[in-house]
């Protein structure tokens, strides 16, 4: 039995006071819902929601070797990042399977921050520091403990953050950030998110994060702001087919079959997993992560087998009801030949094959602000 005490974010007391249902998640005690998952989901699609994602990890790497360290660790081309720009990327093992997915921020000429998944902080810290021991002049710092993170997501996010910030918020492009005060709290204002809506992720000092949260709650009343738990975070990202580490991607899945080939850039030079991924790309992936929609009424869940004419051809990695599409949707690995949109499949649910089909993704159209 695991007796390690659950960790709490700087906003724990805010969640309890707001009546959240708290659950264990990746070693943290987190709000799964406040009023109800579907209502929270809809508020993010129609107005604006606040998410506590302070459990996520932040590492900084600095020095003349910082770029070389990140180029070796991650699959995407960090050299293409300008100061103030952000990149989605992947940390791989030698065999091309996934340590974690992450975002890379270029904070300065020789300074970067990476944001990693909460449940992977210890594993990732060991991986990044050990794997780059040979890189000179790259100093790593684990800033996770001292950093709070609030996501503000939805069509009214820009108006809300803009009202509280001392910077020109509408001018921030997608996957760009600026430093500025929001509600008098010093933050990194990052135009990123995990919902498919326009929005921001605000990094703040841990001891000021509750103040930032309260400022957003107060200023957001006019926008219909709501607090959003992990339950709606999951249905929102599922409708976008954004991968969730531990569900859709992990150390048994490679970056190419997971559909992350767009951030795998072998032309940039050597990186961990490059040779394996080059080989997989040349040979073709054996399976692909696809979006499926249930034709029969039933809910596909993580771990359910996918079949074709009774033969096992894959596995569901995430599935639920999609509130904005009003359908039962799922993400699954299926044999490459069965990945084309329109392919009829079955999902085995409690021993019975239920009709499903491969559909175009995202399930719900993305509203993120594209680089202008």
């Amino acid at each position: 039995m695991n007796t390690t005490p659950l960790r709490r974010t700087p906003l724990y007391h805010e969640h309890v006071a707001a009546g959240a249902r708290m659950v264990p998640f990746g070693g943290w005690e987190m709000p799964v819902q406040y009023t109800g998952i579907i209502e929270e989901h809809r508020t993010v699609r129609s107005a604006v929601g606040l998410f506590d994602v302070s459990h996520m990890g932040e590492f900084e790497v600095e020095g003349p070797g910082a770029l070389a360290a990140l180029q070796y660790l991650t699959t995407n081309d960090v050299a293409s990042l300008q100061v103030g720009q952000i990149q989605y990327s992947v940390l791989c093992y030698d065999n091309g399977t996934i340590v974690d997915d992450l975002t890379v921020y270029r904070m300065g000429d020789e300074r970067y921050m990476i944001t990693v998944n909460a449940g992977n902080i210890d594993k990732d810290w060991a991986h990044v520091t050990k794997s780059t021991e040979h890189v000179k002049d790259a100093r790593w710092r684990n800033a996770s403990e001292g950093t709070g993170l609030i996501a503000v997501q939805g069509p009214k996010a820009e108006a809300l953050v803009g009202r509280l910030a001392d910077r020109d918020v509408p001018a921030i492009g997608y996957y760009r950030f600026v430093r500025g005060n929001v509600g008098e709290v010093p933050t990194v204002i990052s135009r990123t998110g995990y919902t498919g809506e326009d929005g921001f992720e605000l990094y703040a000092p841990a001891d000021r994060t509750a103040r930032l949260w309260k400022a957003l709650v107060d200023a957001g009343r006019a926008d219909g702001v709501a607090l959003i738990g992990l339950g709606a975070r999951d249905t929102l990202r599922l409708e976008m087919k954004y991968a969730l580490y531990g569900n859709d991607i992990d150390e048994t899945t490679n970056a190419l079959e997971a559909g992350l080939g767009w951030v795998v850039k072998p032309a940039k030079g050597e990186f961990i997993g490059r040779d394996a991924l080059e080989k997989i790309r040349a040979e073709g992936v054996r399976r692909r992560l696809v979006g499926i929609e249930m034709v029969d009424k039933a809910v596909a869940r993580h771990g359910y087998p996918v079949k074709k004419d009774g033969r096992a051809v894959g596995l569901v990695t995430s599935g639920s009801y999609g509130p904005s599409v009003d359908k039962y949707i799922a993400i699954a690995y299926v044999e490459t030949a069965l990945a084309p949109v329109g392919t009829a499949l079955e999902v085995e649910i409690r021993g019975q094959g239920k009709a499903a089909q491969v559909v175009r993704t995202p399930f719900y159209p993305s509203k993120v602000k594209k680089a202008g």
Partner: protein
Amino acid sequence: MANVPKDLKYTREHEWAKPEGDRVRVGITAYAQEQLGDVVFVELPKVGAKVTASKNFGVVESVKAVSDLFAPISGEVVEVNGELAQKPETVNQDPYGQGWMLVVKPSSKAEWDQLLTAPQYEELIAQGGH
């Protein structure tokens, strides 16, 4: 505290049973639907199916979880709430009314006395529902 109507009987798995002449109407309690959160799918047996006391008769799924449904009494299913296929959220909105699931014609009267009374069920959920 969740609503526990006095005129119903209850299972330890949070189903309610309501006598209606020689039949029994079955659903899940207000406490159960609160714990589940938004119900998005309900799978029920067909009319004519046999259910057995304390045995699984169907499934209720919320956004996050799958939960088995347990029959309060043994017997034959004589009515099923077909509305729940289209409007599973009715289970959240009106668990003791429009959110009912089955009507069963019991095969044994003795099982009725095994069910929890309202005060016994209130005590169960006061202890955290287990």
